[in-house]
């Protein structure tokens, strides 16, 4: 088998940060090649270099033995490689159809036939079983639907090399399955793929070989079959790491979070929910189940049509985040870019906004105390950053997620609501984040974990499964994957 894509000696610096330091990768023709590494290891940076968005400071990229085209020649790059980037490349103000066929709406110079374009888009969406209206504005889609549109677009180019940078971080089980089926058939057609994910079991499921990056360098490249799970994790983290063990909790009697008679048109109907101190409650459900909408209502991001929310016995004004926070809530929103952090502000400021009033008197925020507090959080959550003063916008995706987590935990909340808490977070960090939730619960807090990932739900004492906007089942600890998925898919009442 010949080498389809090869990068050697790649160095890329961003100011004082070295994102890639002599890294290399070689991907054989027709294989699906995994690239794994901890958050900030330089994976996405390599993607931007392999797709011609950025020029490496040093090193070389070759496609089928030929040097890569000039950076300005975007058409040549697009013929060579298609990509699902980690950062969204959807244009919210345009329709789904136009996003799918951006810059190829028509033949060069020809008039766009919108009707035909929509039909083509519908075909494409059908092929990939993406259930969105081609005419809808992309900005109105859910995070997940947007991701599906991006995937459909990347796969539709007919490129012989496709890169997928954490495509599944925002997808639920069935969507992931569909994606894998699709990738399988592409591979059968001889398409080469590079696949990035923090779900290592996915790597074993669909990839033939794997490259591990650590601290901006290449560590190893091996067939997946030769690399057991433990060794893979050890290669990524540089040390042996045991699998995460969920702990036992002893829920108390006090109810810390209550939702009573909550309904929101189009999202969920007649939901009652109580969380006691020391208890972790999961919220699960497949696409459009309404779980995210419900969780956002609990934290005050949405105002329900009916019903109310109590935090620590205090009835919180609906749709009022500050009131919920003051009542003792901490939360991690679904989309970190949207509601999670202010990119230009530092790690320290982003993490400490909810406790700013405690960092000094008379409305003054003491930078020294802020830095000290942020330092603690950085250490506790193992955030890879130059320090509390680095802007969050410069962090890698997973590390930015940890900053959002830090913000949720900073005020020692007695109620924690986390939505897809480990999206895009590496194995070790995932353990740190789930551990942080459990620590808080052991201190007497109650937690709600909303997630598409079964691993996250394993720490829950019970899982509420939603289907079409209703809570259909309360599943106690001890479920198997198969059971829970069956309930989520509505196959079992």
């Amino acid at each position, binding site marked *: 088998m010949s080498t389809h894509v090869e990068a050697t000696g790649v160095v890329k610096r961003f100011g004082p940060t070295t994102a890639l330091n002599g890294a290399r990768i070689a991907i054989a023709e027709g294989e699906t090649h995994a690239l794994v590494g901890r958050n900030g290891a330089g994976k996405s940076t390599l993607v931007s270099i392999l797709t011609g968005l950025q020029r490496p400071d040093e090193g070389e990229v070759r496609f089928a033995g030929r040097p890569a085209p000039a950076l300005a020649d975007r058409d040549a790059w697009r013929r060579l490689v298609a990509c699902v980037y980690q950062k969204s490349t959807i244009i919210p103000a345009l329709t789904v159809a136009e996003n799918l066929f951006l810059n190829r709406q028509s033949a060069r110079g020809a008039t766009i036939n919108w009707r035909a374009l929509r039909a083509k888009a519908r075909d494409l969406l059908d092929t990939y079983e993406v259930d969105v209206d081609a*005419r809808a504005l992309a900005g109105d889609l859910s995070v997940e639907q947007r991701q599906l549109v991006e995937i459909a677009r990347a796969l539709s180019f007919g490129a012989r090399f496709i890169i997928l940078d954490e495509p599944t971080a925002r997808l639920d089980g069935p969507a992931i399955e569909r994606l894998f089926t699709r990738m399988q058939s592409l591979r059968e057609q001889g398409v080469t793929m590079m696949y990035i994910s923090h779900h290592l079991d996915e790597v074993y499921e669909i990839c033939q070989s794997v490259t591990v990056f650590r601290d901006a360098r290449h560590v190893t490249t091996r067939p997946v079959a030769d690399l057991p799970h433990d060794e893979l994790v050890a290669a990524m983290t540089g040390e042996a790491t045991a699998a995460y063990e969920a702990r036992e909790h002893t829920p108390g009697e006090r109810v810390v979070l209550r939702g009573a008679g909550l309904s929101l048109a189009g999202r969920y109907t007649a939901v009652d929910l109580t969380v006691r101190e020391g208890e972790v409650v999961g919220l699960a459900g497949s696409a459009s189940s309404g779980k995210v909408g419900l969780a956002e209502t609990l934290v005050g991001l949405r105002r329900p049509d009916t019903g109310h929310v109590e935090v620590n016995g205090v009835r919180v004004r609906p749709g009022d985040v500050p009131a919920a926070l003051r009542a003792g809530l901490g939360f991690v929103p679904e989309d970190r870019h949207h509601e999670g952090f202010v990119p230009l502000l530092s790690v320290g400021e982003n993490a400490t906004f909810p406790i700013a009033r405690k960092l000094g008197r008379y409305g003054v925020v003491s930078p020294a105390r802020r830095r000290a507090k942020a330092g603690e959080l950085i250490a506790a959550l193992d955030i890879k950053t130059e320090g509390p003063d680095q802007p969050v916008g410069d962090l890698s995706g997973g590390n930015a997620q940890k900053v959002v987590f830090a913000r949720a935990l900073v005020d020692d909340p007695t109620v924690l609501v986390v939505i897809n808490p480990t999206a895009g977070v590496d194995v070790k960090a995932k353990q740190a984040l789930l551990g942080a939730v459990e620590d808080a619960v052991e201190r007497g807090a109650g937690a709600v974990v909303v997630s598409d990932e079964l691993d996250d739900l394993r720490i829950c004492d019970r899982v509420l499964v939603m289907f079409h906007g209703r809570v259909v089942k309360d599943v106690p600890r001890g479920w198997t994957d198969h059971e829970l998925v069956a309930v989520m898919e509505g196959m079992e009442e």
Partner: protein
Amino acid sequence: MTTLTAPAPRVRLARFRDLTLVPVIVLLLVVGAILDPTFLTAGNLTNVLQQQSAISLLVLAEAMILIAGKFDLSLESTVGTAPAIAVMLVVPAAAGGFGIGLPGALVIPLALLIGAAIGAFNGFLIIRFQLSAFIVTLAMLIIVHGFLQGPTEGKTLFELPDSILYLGSAIWLGLPAAIWIAGALFAAGIFGLGYLRLGRSLYAIGGNIDAARAAGIRVDRILYGAFILGGTLAALAGILETGRLGAIGNNQGVGWIFMVFAAAVIGGVSMDGGKGTILGALTGVLVIGLVQNILTLIGVSGFWQPVIYGSIILIALMISRIAGGKAQD
């Protein structure tokens, strides 16, 4: 797999969003007709269109640039400076020219070229040096106007070659040529931004410049094009205005830019880029033109006119907000 949102009505709404000002226009037509019998005559409405034709070209240019996520304040200065410099290159020194004496037939191409050059220079500073478009074009507004005031020493140019007067004063098929020209350019704009890949890429650039770049759109080249086309349209607006007024005063175009923005934004073009249509911008121009005309006809006191005028802009803005259903930015 059930998507709970009903997509169909949403899309239909989106299409009508271009036309949120149509009720306002109808209202203005009714109010105008009630307030003054002259208002609804063909003559008066033709006047309104003719009066708006020059400024409408600026709105067209600005809408395009705004959709691409940029900004150009200097257009208003180009309206005076481009035709003036072109004229001065052509007319003898006695008539206020430079005494170079290029042939009179060149005056329109020269003016358009000067407009294009100003646009290119703006683009150069903004794209190449990544400077703030607002401040670059603000400085250019001052500088370009200085290039009218400096060589003319503040004087009006009124001995103009016939060629530059023609377009702004001719009548074609019973309507002023300026109306035909503006109409044709708007039609081209609506078509170009609606049905050409080049036009659509302006939306992509304004909506998410990184995504546009990743999709293979030649962002820099297209932005240059937008600035150059914008400058050229502003020069053409200047030519039409020159023909309408018969001379080039030192204040030609000065103060237009605020109205241009107001027209574009109440017409649904976002200041943040990526949103709005040329048709919407056109309705914005019409609203502004009709309001001005009605205020003139009913003869509101000059002292209070600004208050009424500003209030009407606010009301139009609210209507466009309510009908459009989306927060503006």
